């Protein structure tokens, strides 16, 4: 089983994702430079967080034009599992691999803190080990996490069970006061229709080791590793 962590100019969480896959989960893992044109041979692709191209113009706008993105689309079309975290999520939105767009946090401030997430669906390779309704404690760190989508898109997301995580309080209640950025319907993560592409603002790679205060992020990586193991005989 082999994981690829995409690296764009300005990717900052590439090392963190690599560390978790390689050293926590002992997965064979490569960094994949954004000029690569193929993702042949990878079983899992992580689009990590950071400030690709400085977040200039719009977050994720320039990264979506990198050569590796066509390879990523091929990988997705073949059904390969992809997770975009934070800026990675924003890139997937810009690239049209996930619906909707990201705006600045309503506070107009960068926010770095632990938040709680409620799992809304078990039906993705990244949440298959989680129960619907289970609560994760997980860090966020972003300036543009205010997810928005047209009413039609939101309806579709709901009808197709594409909302993966919502911000909630410690008790699992999805309430306005638990929303760190103004995101519509407290959405923290979504998936595509085919369910193999997940984007989320919070950082599971920052809470996958006990010394970092929470291991709730592990479930997300474990889910995909188990899903892959199930598929690969």
């Amino acid at each position, binding site marked *: 089983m082999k994981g690829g962590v995409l690296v764009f100019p300005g990717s900052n969480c590439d090392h963190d994702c690599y560390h978790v896959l390689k050293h926590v989960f002992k997965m064979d893992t490569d960094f994949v430079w954004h000029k690569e044109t193929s993702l042949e041979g990878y079983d899992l692709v992580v689009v990590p967080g950071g400030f690709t191209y400085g977040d200039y*113009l*719009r977050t994720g*706008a*320039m990264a979506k*034009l990198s050569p590796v993105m066509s390879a990523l689309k091929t990988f997705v079309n073949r059904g390969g599992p992809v997770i975009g975290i934070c800026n990675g999520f924003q890139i997937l*939105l*810009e690239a049209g691999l996930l619906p*909707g*767009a990201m*705006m*600045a*946090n*309503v506070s*107009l401030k960068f926010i770095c803190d632990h938040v709680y997430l409620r799992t809304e669906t078990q039906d993705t390779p990244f949440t298959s080990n989680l129960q619907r309704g289970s609560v994760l404690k997980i860090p966020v760190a972003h300036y543009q996490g*205010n997810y*928005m*989508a*047209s009413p039609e898109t939101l309806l579709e997301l709901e009808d197709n069970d594409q909302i993966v995580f919502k911000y909630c309080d410690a008790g699992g209640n999805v309430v306005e006061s638990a929303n760190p950025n*103004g995101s519509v319907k407290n959405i923290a993560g979504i998936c595509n229709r085919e369910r193999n592409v997940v984007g989320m603002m919070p950082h599971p790679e920052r809470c996958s080791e006990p010394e970092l205060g929470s291991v709730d992020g592990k479930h997300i990586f474990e889910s995909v590793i188990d899903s892959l193991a199930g598929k690969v005989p």
Partner: protein
Amino acid sequence: MKARVYVTMKKGVLEPQGRAVARSLASLGYGEVKGVRIGKVMDIEMKDVTEERAEKLLEEICQKLLANPVIEDYTFEIVDDRKS
């Protein structure tokens, strides 16, 4: 040749920066200001292009990069058409 591209938020899209500015203005006593919406203005300098080519190019780069059609509209104008 120089062009100016305007990228603004689609109608109906909540735009947090503009809202915050409007609120600040109100608290500074400028009650006359009822709304602010903030977009981008981009000054583009091009070389060795005809006006026709420039229009096509601008259209292309707006669609590909400068604006996000999910939330933004764009317009552009060629500011001077002297070949440079």
